């Protein structure tokens, strides 16, 4: 599924838990938080880095820095992403 958008109107930032499956995005902001958030950031989910969702749901699978990461949706909610109008999902290079 692709977000409803045109090249002239880039998609609005959304939290990662609301990013549709297979839509490439870039991380805009990560809420400062605890140990789990720091670990997620060191795994590649941090500002300016590309990301996409492999599986949505209460336990999500996202792809960042070429690696799949399993995430609780609660923690994904602390990540704000901007969907890209066009782009390659980061796990595919």
């Amino acid at each position, binding site marked *: 599924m692709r977000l409803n958008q045109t090249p002239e109107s880039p998609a609005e930032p959304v939290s990662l838990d609301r990013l549709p499956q297979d839509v490439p995005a870039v991380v805009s902001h990560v809420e400062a938080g605890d140990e789990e958030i720091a*670990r997620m950031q060191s795994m590649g989910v941090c*500002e300016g*880095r590309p990301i996409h969702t492999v599986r949505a749901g209460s336990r999500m*699978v996202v792809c960042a820095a070429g*690696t*799949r990461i399993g995430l609780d949706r609660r923690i994904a909610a602390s990540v704000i992403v901007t969907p890209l109008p066009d782009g390659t999902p980061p796990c595919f290079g």
Partner: protein
Amino acid sequence: MTAAPPSNSSSAVVQPTIGQSTRSTEATVALLGNPNAGKTTLFNRLTGLRAKTANFPGTTLEVRRGAADLEHHRVTLLDLPGLYSLGSMNSANPEEAVAADTLRGDAPGVDRPAAAVLVIDATSVARHLYLVSQVRETDVPVVVALNMIDAAERSGLSIDADALSLQLGAPVVPVSARNGRGIVQLRREIEKIVADDERVTAPVPEPLAACSRCGGCPHAARHAWASGVAADSVKGLSAAAQRWSDRFDTVLTHPAAGLGVFAAIMAGLFVLIFSTAAIPMDLIDAGFAALGGWAESVLPDNDFRSFLIDGVIGGVGGVLVFLPQICILFFILTLLEDTGYLARAALVMDRLMSKVGLPGKAFVPMLSAHACAIPAIMSTRVIENKRDRLVSILVIPLLTCSARLPVYAMVTALLFAGRPVLGGLVFFGAYALGIVAALVIAFLLKLTLLPGKARPLVIELPDFRMPSLRVALLTTLDRGLIFIKRAGTIILLISMGLWVLSTYPKLPAERLGEVATPADAAQARALETQIAGAEAAGDTQTAATLGEELSLISGKYEVAHSFAGRLGRAVEPVFAPLGFDWQINVGVISSFAAREVVVSTLAIVYGLGEDAAEEPLTLSQTLAAQTHADGTPVFTLATSLSLLVFFVLAMQCLPTQAVARRETGGWKWPLFQLGYMTVLAYGAAWVTYTVASAFT
């Protein structure tokens, strides 16, 4: 191929001085990398079987040390815990704090490493460079092992190790820890650093140094740097493989299909364990029986012989018989982990387990607990959050371990001999009761003593890959040796103590007539007369056979007379509501430290001798024939089920308590665990006895 950082191609990189001297003392070399980078495989490849597992001083973190031979030196290789970043000294993540302390030389009892070997996954260079960027900023000289280079090449990736080395300012050696490719070159690069008296660390390349100076998100600058370095040195795409992995993940992480796959794999795992472990278990059993028989044949009949056979050989054998199940479980779990599947299973289970306050990462320890709670409690170290880890430790002993199986087998044979379907249902019910109890207790702890939700899961899902048999075998060997050492020694001490309690004070032979029932006393007198006659006639074989019969009769009265027997009688009012008589009480008390002891104890107190414990049918037939003074049977359906439920839920394992004390840092929680499990077992057994009595 080895890529050393060129000294003349970049002003930002200086080739470290390479000395030629040799050292007599062993230098320490730290091995570190992300989880799933193949660090353990490389450690095993470099050290072989010379590894020792111990805790970091003052922590519960395990570290493996092993000797690795270089061309002219032997070094101590330190396998640091897997980590994604290098924490500060006060990092909340213990793995990161320990790694940082070790590299700084601040870890107590650990030598500051002369070099660090950073293991990175060649199939995912960009992500692993994050950690490299942090380690390069320490003063420790670094060698980068570009592991799984064969897998990267197969997936179409081409990595320019020279370019990578230039940008990292450190030698980069492409290796495959699985097949040994590049290991010789890796050893040479480590040796160059170890042999260098000055051990000058190459300067951090300027682009990397800029990361720690820039403002904004500290992670972002490093990832941007890592991404740029990877783009310059890694060519080719593995999109097809990634899409294939994604398709697998679509099924394996699906809320319903993922659970189905998990259930099928676990069912297969247990079928495999129980079907393949039977033969080695029988062999171990037979081996200890033969050893006991040999000791009986060469030693004179006295207390020392009884102590050696019943206390020492029987005690150690009673534990080691479960070793095959534990080894098979760890072998298969290591294979599954190596494929990358267990991380998916943890994600799927997290959804369910978090509802009762357990983290998804507790599921592998809980799985291991079905072999033995001791390694299971130790493996809760993968759970970072203290609350989550404590809840997991507190409920793990409720899950059916191997030591409960003899009790289940005894009760099954007692109730449903020759009716395998009903017997199977008893086993299933006992396993299910343990699992349900663990989940309910976790939920109650969440509502009361340990409030709060389990920490949200963040877990790497590594690429699927073929598992390594070598790694699985070495891990199994490691875990098996830990089990033998830790559980075996404690059980041995307990067995020796129990032998003393059930042997002393001794019942004088002339007092047997006073304490035995009239029938037993008459039979004992008749046997004594027959033995005397046989001895007078020189028929030693008959005399020996009759002597064994006499010792069976006297044995149960001797136990009754012992400290253990007296205690069994003293607590009769306590256990009477569960349908237990004093002999069962002796079994319950004697198995306080090791639950499987109840079977051999019942065999002794009901006058069968220990050999009968190995033949549940014989034991069950005798137990079924036992009656109270009023002639009613002792082992009714209600009493048998009550006994079963009690042993499903009771702690009855001192080694587990000892490990829980070590892992929780004191006796407070292990005593709470003992208390709640005893109350739960007693209450559930009472309910079972009361309900079953009402219907029978």
